[in-house]
């Protein structure tokens, strides 16, 4: 049996098909952007560290506030001081509400970066940045939580360096990793990411 369609029926089918595909396109492609977190950071509850004033801190230090966290060491000649300095520049560019972000600089070299040494070092940068040190075991709990690479590499018997991840992590008050600012990102990009982090 051959089905014959009238012109109006054909037009109706065409219209329904068009609406269907437009809806699928709208849902799949034009959907409003939803916030997708990279991962959730789980802070070890037994965490015991020191800030650059020598005050003991635990996992609570990293909770219930938006924070930036960066890993480095004071013997780092380039990336670490540059990044710490850049953070201040970004904060100035973003302007309002930046004081609500907690900023942490965690050492990957606890052997040389005692709280006392960190205290001297942090004087070179924004007072908003908290230097954090501790034992290798305690610090490794943080490295693991963020998936940070930190490896001591000897130059010779007198000196060594520490290879380490160079990114800055933006973490929300629930421990969700909102975004990452990579080393070398433009001022414009960094400010955009920070502004998004502050406003979400």
């Amino acid at each position, binding site marked *: 049996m051959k089905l014959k369609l009238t012109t109006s029926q054909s037009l109706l089918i065409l219209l329904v098909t068009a609406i269907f595909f437009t809806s699928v396109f709208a849902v799949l492609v034009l959907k409003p952007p939803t916030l997708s977190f990279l991962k959730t950071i789980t802070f070890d509850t037994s965490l015991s560290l020191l800030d650059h004033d020598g005050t003991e801190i635990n996992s609570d230090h990293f909770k219930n506030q938006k924070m930036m966290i960066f890993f480095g060491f004071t013997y780092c000649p380039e990336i670490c001081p540059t990044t710490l300095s850049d953070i201040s520049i970004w904060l100035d560019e973003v302007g309002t509400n930046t004081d609500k972000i907690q900023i942490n600089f965690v050492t990957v070299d606890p052997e040389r970066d005692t709280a006392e040494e960190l205290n001297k070092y942090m004087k070179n940068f924004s007072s908003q940045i908290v230097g954090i040190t501790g034992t290798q075991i305690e610090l490794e709990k943080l490295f693991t939580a963020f998936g940070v690479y930190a490896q001591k590499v000897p130059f010779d018997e007198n000196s060594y360096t520490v290879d380490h991840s160079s990114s800055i992590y933006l973490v929300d008050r629930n421990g969700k990793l909102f975004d990452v600012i990579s080393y*070398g990102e433009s001022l414009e990009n960094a400010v955009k990411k920070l502004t998004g982090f502050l406003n979400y």
Partner: protein
Amino acid sequence: MLLQKKTALTHILIIFLGMAFSISAKASESLIFDKATVSISGMHAKVAAGYVSIENIGAKEDVLLSVKSDFAKISEIHEMKHVNGVMKMRKITSGIAIKSNTTVSLRKGGYHIMFMKLAKHLSPGEVVSVKLKFQNLGWVIKDFRVSDGHQMSGNEHSHTEDNQ
């Protein structure tokens, strides 16, 4: 007679000195140094990075072999690499070759001189002497100006995987 001999000897000495000076001047002219800076990170810096641009206008390749300074107990040539989000630094033991008619820059993000265990406090603006040893040229003493490195940043990182 004796006076004539003395005069002749003086002339010979002057000629030799002139030749020696000329050789030395020629040799030092084969490398041109620029942008010599010692970058520190604030007042409590424990390490400093040395940057310099070296142009070889001579006919032969030369190699920067080692570095010495009075203000640091350890002065080494290092290379920084940023690979897959990880900062790595390595000591260069084989030297840095500077081919004829090329310029090698020791700069942020690549080769640099690493001054460790600073023996004295360095201040921005200060000029310090750094001795650089080259394969052909031998030891060369150059003035490096101290600058507060992190204040120069403004996110103008140089991302060089290759310095040449």
